[in-house]
């Protein structure tokens, strides 16, 4: 791991103008790089893209050309995230520099064991329709533990790993907000 990190640092020394990123969506992970002195050119894999702004509207709407192809989009961003709304779809991307990713791996390794998230949260505001488990029950990864309904649509939430139900916060028939804690495993 250390070796890997070293070579990464060397890479940066050799190409100080180039920042490398890992870009992650629900669909895939891609690597991209940008020239710090010419931020209109981005390389994704082997492909090079020239990005030119055509027009900006308000603080968050952009019209751009990517290799002369027109795109319109609304965007927002935070520390390691870019959210795009374009063509009717919303895309949530995480973006980290390669060195950041390497660093995180070291930190994770240095911890005794990978910590799994034992909390099941509601993915949307809705109603708790059904709870299929009870405190103390052993559950397997993929078991549907609880059903949330919103806008006439039901959503069954599955256990993220094999474990035991520690506590159930949700109550059948009540409304919950987005990200409300429903069930805690251990």
């Amino acid at each position, binding site marked *: 791991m250390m070796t890997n990190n070293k070579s990464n640092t060397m890479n940066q020394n050799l190409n100080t103008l180039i*920042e490398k*990123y890992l*870009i992650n*969506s629900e*669909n*895939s992970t*891609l690597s*991209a*790089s*940008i020239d710090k002195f010419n*931020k*209109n050119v*981005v390389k*994704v*894999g082997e*492909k090079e*893209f020239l*990005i030119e702004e055509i027009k900006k*509207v*308000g*603080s*968050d*709407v*952009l019209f*751009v050309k*990517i290799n002369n*192809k027109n*795109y*319109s*989009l*609304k*965007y*927002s*961003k*935070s520390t390691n*995230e*870019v*959210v*795009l*709304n*374009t*063509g*009717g*779809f*919303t*895309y*949530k*991307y995480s*973006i980290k520099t390669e060195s950041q990713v390497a660093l995180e791996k070291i930190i994770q390794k240095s911890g005794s064991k990978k910590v799994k998230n034992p909390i099941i949260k509601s993915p*949307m*505001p809705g109603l708790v329709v059904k709870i299929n488990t009870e405190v103390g029950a052993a559950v397997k990864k993929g078991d549907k533990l609880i059903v949330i309904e*919103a*806008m*006439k*649509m039901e*959503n069954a939430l599955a256990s993220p790993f094999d474990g035991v139900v520690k506590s159930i916060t949700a109550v059948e028939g009540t*409304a919950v*907000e*987005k*990200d409300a804690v429903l069930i805690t495993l251990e």
Partner: protein
Amino acid sequence: MFKKILVANRGEIAIRVINAARELSVETIAIYHKVDKEMPFVRYATYAIEIEAETPKAAYLDMHKIINVAKENGAEAIHPGYGFLSENAGFSKLCQDSGIKFIGPYSHSIESMGSKTGAREIMIKAGVPIVPGHNSKVTDFAEAIKIAEGIGFPVLLKAAAGGGGKGMRVVEKAEEFQENYEAAQREAIKAFGDDLVYMEKYILNPKHIEAQIIADEHGNYVFLGERDCSIQRRHQKVIEEAPSTVLDEDLRARMGKVAIDAAKACNYVNAGTIEFLLDINKNFYFLEMNTRLQVEHPVSELITGIDLAKEQIRVAAGYPLSFKQEDIVLRGHSFECRIYAEDPLNNFMPDIGKIAYLKEPFGNGVRVDTGIENNTEISLHFDPMLSKLITYGKDRDDAAEKMITALKNYQLLGFSNIIPFLIDVFEDDRFRNGYFDTGYIPNHYDFEALKAKKYENEDELAALVTYLFNRPDEEIIKTDVTPSLNSWKMNNLNMRKE
């Protein structure tokens, strides 16, 4: 003609009616709840008057306040649009009693068509085909099975007092009849306190076809062709078209005659729609009559060239229809798409937020009936439809190509919407070849292919993300991905479910 009318509605349909009135040199009064103050329809009317009410919806449902505003401001008639008070027989009556013309049918027509069983009886008398069935109590199962065989399996059992799918069961064959009938009875008594169960022929994935008619106060009735509204998600229409791909001249003529018979049977005046189920053998059955202007009326306007909303006002003012049946020329083809802020890849889950950028499509064969603009807040107070996109072409392919183009040109930024889904439907051979019924979206639509389309240019998206991440933005933009609903919005969410 009236000098001034009040439009008791909001959004796109309020603007639709205001335009129709303006064409007749009739002034308009818009009413609005304060949450709607900045909506375009308020400014579109000649005059605008706020109605105070505890909830936004209540403002548009307050019959007495609305009639008072009309009276105090010299409006001679009220157009109800669709939804809200449009099919409220009491409101039609109250208008009449207040000396204000209700732009729609008389209260007795609304009333008789408002009751499912009442409407069914009137239609039987008028010789209108209804779904074959049996509407009295069954005690002897041997006899009941005989009746079911007469109707023809599969049959649908449903609670007489029911609704919403409870106590409904499909019986495929005689052997399963008794078991299902008893189960339906148990469900019915549990849900409605009444174990009376009817049976009728079960029509699997029928086409939803509806006939547009209009009638004046002088006994003239005209049939304006049919619409096919079979593409539905969650039993709500999303795509409509006219004419239907499955009607030939003969079937259209027969359906038109039946529709006019149905309208005559309830002394109908003004624009109305008779909904039918069409089975795979092209038998059609009366479903219900909508005693108002439909959301999807534009497709009929485009293939006939007749302005339904304008004609509604003329008819209400006592004029005879400005056309006869023989003047109606059906030419070309028209589609309508309802535009919603929903994520098709997440079970059509509604998205909300502010419109960051809007430029609706325009040009040859493109019509947008809209009530939104830049910065409009999409909330949960009202029906979540944003606008209606309608196209017209010389034939079905031309209209479909225009729809795909218009959908691609529809610049709507700020949240997820169903436009990419709609494009995908119009690019689907099954739909384009006319092989679809009400089961199309749940049974045949390929959501995985849509997801693949979402990510088909992911290299470009990744380049864009990298660029934007490095962009020196003047303002700090907070990420607000899937907007979390606060408790105020939460209440509204619960309200809407009711």
